[in-house]
Structures are given as C-alpha cells and as structure tokens.
C-alpha cells in the first residue's frame, strides 16, 4: 500500500466525517428551532392568559370599588380620598422585564394580607349576605390566581432565574382602627389595587412585544 492510496483513504474518511457532521448539525438546528418555537408558543399563551386575567381582575376591582362605596353609606366619596400608610405601592419596580414581572408577583402577594384584613373588617360592618363580602372574596382569590399565573409566566420566560421573595419580609398591616379608619383603609387598599392592576395590564402589553419575541432571535442567533 503506497502513500497515494493512504492519502485517498484519508480523504474518503474526511468526506464521510464532514457529511456526518453536517447532518448532525442540521438535526441540532432543527431541534433547537422546534424547541424554540414551542417555547415561544408557550410564552405567548402564558402571557395571553396573564393578560386576560389581569384585565379581568382589573375590571372586577373597578366593580368592587363601586360596590364598596355603595356599601359604606354616606361620605363614601370622601373616605376614598384620604390617604393611608402601609398600603403597597401601586407602581411596578425594576428595570429588566424579569425584575418587573417579579415586582408584579411580589405586589400581588403583598396585597393578599390587606384583602384579608379588609374582609375581616367589613365582615363586622356588613351583613353576611352583602355582595361586598362576596366580591372581596373573589378579588382575593383572583389575586392568588393572577399571582400563580404571573409566576408561571415568569418560569416560562426565565426558566433559570428564581423568582425573588418579597424584600421586606412579611407584609406590614395597619394597627387596630376605628370604623371610619377601617372604611378609609378598605377603600385605599382597593383603589391602590385597582391602580396597580392598571399598571400590570400596561406592563404586560409592553412585555408582550418584548419578551416572547425576543427569545426567538436569541435562540436562533445561538446557532
């Protein structure tokens, strides 16, 4: 066997290896694209679900404020204009989408104890059959659902980024209040929550155009 023959074998081996490598490369690209498409669809669906739920919650919060005002008797407009401390900030914090989504989640969690307190206070003030109690229950449950959906959405778009827990630890609730203070407190909580939800809806619409689309080019450019 001479050197020419050896060189020919080597060339054949190299051709075969190149072909094989090309095939593997194509398969990998195709697989990545499929995964990316699937993830992108998942992102869109989850975002859509979050958006719908936030809108619904916002609408229900609007209805709840109307019901709340109607059930507080006279001076209902007045009590809703008083400001109260220790109520979560309606603004969404953070710069990156991950931070802002995490902020949404933490805010939703932060409102839950307040809803519980308002419910307890209003249970003493309202009849058991009052629609306000029902709606307070609903808004509380809806907030939990929305928090769960936001959490899910976050997990989808940032699978390797853990959702941070609330920075300030447990939510601070107001001290014991008189009836007027209770009424004012309840209204402020609900108004703040409504405002927060409005911000959430806006934020999610913004994220919709950023997050789900952005990940596709990232994945594609990787290859």
């Amino acid at each position, binding site marked *: 066997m001479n050197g020419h023959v050896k060189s020919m074998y080597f060339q054949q081996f190299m051709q075969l290896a190149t072909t094989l490598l090309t095939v593997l490369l194509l398969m990998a690209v195709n697989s990545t694209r499929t995964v990316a498409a699937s993830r992108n669809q998942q992102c869109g669906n989850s975002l859509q679900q979050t958006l719908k739920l936030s809108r619904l919650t916002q609408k229900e919060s609007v209805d709840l404020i109307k019901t709340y005002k109607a059930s507080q008797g006279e001076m209902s407009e007045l009590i809703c204009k008083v400001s109260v401390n220790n109520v979560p900030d309606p603004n969404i914090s953070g710069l990156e989408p991950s931070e802002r989504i995490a902020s949404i989640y933490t805010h939703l969690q932060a409102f839950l104890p307040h809803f519980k307190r308002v419910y307890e206070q209003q249970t003493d003030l309202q009849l058991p059959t009052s629609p306000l109690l029902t709606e307070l229950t609903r808004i509380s449950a*809806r907030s939990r659902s929305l928090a769960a959906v936001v959490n899910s959405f976050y997990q989808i778009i940032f699978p390797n980024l853990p959702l941070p827990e609330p920075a300030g630890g447990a939510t601070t609730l107001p001290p014991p209040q008189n009836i007027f203070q209770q009424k004012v407190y309840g209204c402020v909580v609900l108004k703040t929550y409504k405002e927060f939800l409005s911000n959430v809806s806006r934020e999610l619409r913004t994220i919709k155009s950023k997050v789900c689309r952005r990940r596709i080019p990232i994945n594609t450019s990787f290859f």
Partner: protein
Amino acid sequence: MVSARVLQLLWLAFLSALLTRGENENHLVVAPQSPVLEMGTTFTATCMIINTAEITSDDLYWNLSKTIIPREQYTKVNRSALNVTISVSNENCEWLFCLCKEVSASIALNKGRFIHGILLKKGYRPVKPENLTCVALQEKIYISSIITCRWDSVGRQTKDVPTKYTLYLTVTLPGEHFNKTTTENRAQITFSMFPSFMELDIWVVAHNQLGAVESEHLKKESDCFVKTNPPADVRVISERSFPTSLLINWTRPIDKGLMGLTYQIRFSKNASQSWTYVPRGETSNDIQSFRIQNLQPDTVYVTQVRCKNAKESYCHWSDWTHGVTKRTPEDRPTGKPDLWAIISQGDAMNERRVQIVCKDPVFANGWIIGFDIKIQGQKGKVMNGSLKWERIPVNRSEEDYHPTQRKFDVLKDIQLPDRKSVKVEVIAVNSVGASATASLVVPEKGHERSPVEALRIWTQGGQLWLEWKPPNKSALSEYVVEWVSDNQVDWQRENRSTRLTAIKGNLKRFVCYSVSVYPIYSGWPGKAAKMEAYLEQEAPLKGPDVRLNGKPGRTHAELVWTEISARERRGFITNYTIFYSSDTKHTVVVPANTTSYTLTSLSGNTKYDICIGASTIAGLTIGSTHSFTTLKYEDGVIEFIVVGASLGFLFVVIMTLLLCVYKKDVIKRNFWPQIPNPGESTIGNWSPDYPLKAETPKENSLSGISVLNVDVCDAKCVFEEDKTSLSLKKDKYLSEEHSSGIGGSSCMSSPRQSVSDSDEGGDIADTTASTIQYSSVVASSGYKGQTPSTQPQQAVFSRSESTQPLLDCEENPDMQEVSRQSQHFPTQSCFTHATGNKDGNIRLEAEQQNEPLNFCLLDKRLPTEEQSPDWLPVTPASSYMPQLGGYRPQ
C-alpha cells in the same frame, strides 16, 4: 398470586394462634375471612383443623348456601387442611361453611366447635367512566362558583360491592385540588371563585372493593366549561328600503373581560319548523349585530341567537334566545300570477261556461290588492268591451293573505261559444307594484292539441303521484295538473321536462279526485288526459240499500240496490257481495257495475234475510238487511187449480145435467117408481093380512111420523110430570129425529130435537099397515109425556088428512114443491119466533097464544080432534119401508 397465598396462610396462622387461647376454642378455621370475590372468577378457601387430633381433613366437607359442595372441588392440603375451589357465578351474597362429619360422639355433642363459615361478597370490577362533561353556569354577571360534572357509569355492580365515583378537579397553576365522592354519576365541586382563565384538570375515578379505574382527563381552560346565558335584548329591525333583509341586534350576556364570545344565528319562516343557520364564518367573534340577507319580502321570520366561548370550538353553547318574529318589508310581486280557466257546460247549446281564475304569484311579496285583466277575442277584439285593462279588486281576510294553500280568485265568468277562442292576460298588483303579465288562451272546442299519453296515478307516501308520457309536440311549454272533487278545483303547474310529479295540494283522504293533465303549448292548453283517483281508500261509509224488485217468486227473487253516493263511497267499489240466508247462509259476489241481481234456487215459503256489502280495496261495508218470504206456490198455480177445479165441477154438472136429460126416464123410474093408480086398484083384492106388515117390528112399522116438539126444559118436565114415561122418552130422544116427513122437509125440520112418535105410531101403524103410504106428522105443543093438553089434537097434523094416495103429488111435483114451501115458511117463522125468546115464560105464553101460529098454515088443514081417529085407522100402510128406515139416522 403467590403473595396472596402467603398472606392467606399467615392469616390462618394468626387466627389459629388467637383461637388456641380460648377454652371454648373452635377446631375449624376458614381463610380468607370475609373475602370480596369478583364475578366470573374462581375462589379457593382453606379449612384448617386446629387444637384437635380427633378429626382429619378427610372428615371435613364444605357447604355453600346449604348445599354440600362435591368432593371433586376439594383439595387436601395435608392431614389438617382442606381446600375448596368454587366458581363465582351468583351475584348474591353467600355463606361458605367448613363442617365436620360426626365421626365420634364428642363431635356430635360439640357441633358448634366443628363448624366455621365465611361470608362471600361478590361484585364486579369497576369500569372506566365515560363521557365526562362539566359545566359551570353563568350566574348574574359572573360565572357560578359551582361546577357540575356528569359521566356515564359503565359496567355492572352489585349491592354488596357498590361502585363509588370520586370526581377530582385540579386548578393547575395554583395547584388547588378538589374532589367529591358519590355513588351517582354526577357531582358538583364548589370553588371560592370560578377560576377564570385557569387550566382545569378534571377526571373521575370509579372504585370499589375490587379495584379502581380512572376516566379520561378533561384538561381545558376553565372558561370552556362555562355555559353562558343566551344573548340578551335581541331585536330584529325591518327596514323598508331593504325588503329582503332583517337586521338583528343583541347584547352580550357576559362581560368581555370574562369571556370572548362567538355567536350562531338561525331563522325560519313563520310556522315553519325548518331552521336556516347563518354560516359560522359570517358571524365574527364578539359581534352584537348581524344583517340576514336574501330573505323573501313580506314574509314573517323567526330569529334566534346563541353564543359560546370564542376560544374553543368544543365549549358549551348557550341556550337559544326566544324567537323574535319580524316581517320583511313588502316588494312588488316577482313572477307571474297563476292564470287558469275552468271550462264547463254553458247555459245554451254550443256554448261553454269559462271561469277565468287566478292565483297570486308564488312570490306575491305583499298584499295583492287586485288583478288587471284583459280578454281578447279571436281577431284582437277585446271581449270585456275596452281596450284598457280592467282592474278586479280582491278583498281578502288575514287568513287568505298568507294561506298555507294558495287559493284562487274568480276574475271573470263568461259564456264562450264553442267555435270561439279568447286570449286572457292578467297582472297581479300589490301596494308596491305590479307583476309580470300572465296569459292564457281558451281554444275553440274540439280544436285542442294532443293530450299527454299513458297517464298513470298512484299513491305513495301520503301523496298522489302522476306519471305521463309527453305528447309528440315540440311547442310544449309546460303542464297543468288539475284536480277536481265535490266541485272544488285546484291546479298546479309543472315544467315541460316533468314526467313524474306529486300533487302538492292538500288532498283529502277517501275523496274521489278527477285528475287531469293539460299540456300547455305556448299558452294554449291541449286536450286533457283524465283519471279518477283516491289519495287513500277505505271501506264505504254505508252499504247499499237493497230492496226487491216486485214480489218474490217461489224460487227466485230479484234484488235491486242503488249505488252508494260518491261522498259515502270512500274508494273505488270493486264488487258487491250479496248475503242471503234462511237456515243456511249464502253469498254471491257480483261486479261493481251491477245494481240488480236475481236470486234463484230459493226454497218456497221460506223467509230470507238479504243484505248487500259494497267492497273497496280497503274493506267491505254491509248495508241494511231486508227480509222477504218466498211464495208457497208459484204465481198462477192457485189460479190454475181453481180454474181446473171449476172446469171439472162444471163438467160434472153438465154431464149430470146431460145424464138427467138423456136418462130422465131411467132416473124417474128409479126414484119415483110407478105407483099403481088407485083408480085402477081393486081394494077388495088387498089382503089386510099382508105378511110383511105383520112381521115388521113396531118401531119400524111406523107409517106416519109424529114430531114431538121438545123444549129445553123437557128433561125437567119429564122428571116432574111423568117419570113413568122416562124410559119411553129416552128411547125417543135417542132416536134424535131432526126431520121427518116425505121430502125431507117439514115444519119441524129444525135443529130442535124431534122424536118420532113411534110408540103411538105403533098402534097406528098396526091399524094402518094395510093402507097406502101416507105421511103423517104429529105436531105436539108439548112433549110426549106431558099431560094431555086442552087441545091435544090441534098439535097433531098430518101432511094429508086425506086417505088419498100421493098420486097427485107424484104426478105434479111442482105442485108438491109449492105445497112444501108453503108449508115450510110459516113453520120456520113460527119456530124462529118460538126459539128466539130465551125466556121460558115468554115462550110459553107465545106458545099458548100463538099455538095456531106455529102451525098456522097447516092449521086449516089439520084434522080436528074428532077427525083424527077417523083417518088414523085408514092410514095406508107404507110401501116405502126402506125410506122410513133411512130417515132415522137423519
């Protein structure tokens, strides 16, 4: 399986350990305890002997529901254990006992220690539930927090091993779990709030003591389980400028934030049950109005809407809204009016009555207010006297306005000569405008073009179907199918290619229709092909009424009956059946075109019941029954017999008369023998000792007859007055002479009893035996035994007081007859007088007063009392002895 056996053995060991502790321990133990068995499988139980060596497993036996299980099903494990294997086939709960034979007295005494049983519960393994569906209803503006799920339970279960179902529901994202267990096939789960936009995972687990099985999972977004209310405030708007469309508006039943909705719209013409659905593609999501197009003008439509979640195609539809009714605006008629002519016999000869009739156009598109008509003659002359159109208004009720069946209006009723044809043009007019012109020619009679061929009519599917072959004419434009019944006419048009069609009119069952098919040649009707048909036939409403034509004969009778009226016929008469019966029943079937029939071979003098049944293909109806009796004799037989008998009698009479005439001398000689002329006789030659008279018995030697008049009270009088003469009278009564005297007639010829006075006569006879025959009649006012009356001789009379023989009478029979009659009448009258009074006193008085009246005529001739003895001795002896004797039986 092995582990089960191990467990069973362990359980046995545990049980035996427990049982050995007690003093009153049981010596038999069965394992497994309280098993639940699956139907269709086999089960093995083990019986173990503990704490005794008195018995072995050979002494054991099994009992299932009080029945000993055959030994073939036993398996001996060892000396102290015995298995039994049974198949589980019966659903009922059963006891399985292990028992011991009484091999010793101690076993017999302690039976309770040598028995152990287990209860076998049987059941079926659960089967996977199918068709799981869940629904959450809308509640006010929200969705109910209760979700209701249903499923189909599959498979069987027993009451001992019931199957339970557990409904599981998981809200995926927050990870909330709910479940509800039930024995039914539905369950409800209540949330604190309906989890909108969350994914739900729902499934059902069927489980019992034999196992568990899970249904398919329903994993959907929660909104898909929502069944909303139907759309609210549905309004339908009719716009005059759009006569073929309707605009529908509604309000969504639930907030858009809760659920996006898609809608479905359907509509139907009023009173129609068939719905037209608007294609789903035309109703985009979350709309709240829709315009339905391509509708018919001036038509009432019912519209409905429903909705469902727009996201998923398999979500629940809401119920339909209530139907909203709206009429589309009017439009001018589209198409032509349906013009036709009904032709019948005219009032005058060579004339036809033509009724121009017209139906509204199929699409009248509004209220037809009238028809414009123009009738042109053969040469362009306008028949109705004007070149302009004539407006014929029509006035209709609401019912006529939109009838289910198109009715027609009679526009004109004209008399048209047979030899003339006219062309009719008609336009239908409504409030919006006029239709196109319809025209029709009524051709001359006999000049119609050729008809269709091979017309055939039959019933199928509740309709009357027609089939025909077209005439061989190329100018054919269409066909008109006309049907007539009870002077009701209707028609329909078919296009030129039609060969087979069904009558679309509302035909009645059991009514005869005359169906005609007219080919139309460019507006010229051709000759009709006609047939009669029924939509459906049944037995006639009544049978024919039968009667006899004339009188029945001895063996025949002619029956006639009338045809059943068309209204009562209810079908084509196929035949008539004649039923007639006397002792036996007979039937005769005659064709349908027969209305009379002569029954023959009947029995004479027999009553027959007849009735006639008329048959259609659907049945037979029998008419009223008529009865008649056949004659005993045929007509003329009696007359023949009477005439024959009369002729025979006449013949006999004539022959007798002839015989009398021709044999007069012989007859005379026989009946009236020659009596010697007394003038020529020599009395001196006559010997009184004529031996014949001397030998004649007393009774028979009567030469004269005395008639004794006996009254009703005779017997009484006899007893009272002359009992001594009883025997004598008895003899006389026995004779019971009702008449006497020569010639058979006398004054005493009456039903009254008369007695021949033979005893007195006997003496007389003796004395007059030698005299020539005289008739001597004794009339007595009393009776024989009576005490002699004051005028005893007055009652005695003789036919002739003369001793002269009857020569004169014999020679002059006419005179004798006159004499007899003159004798007869007064007697009868007197006798009648006497018997006519029932009262005895009156009669007695009459007899006393009118005694002469009784024998008034004879009285003068009667001899006096003094004369009697004079003539008695000279009474000639009768020469007619046989005659005397012959009177007796009278």
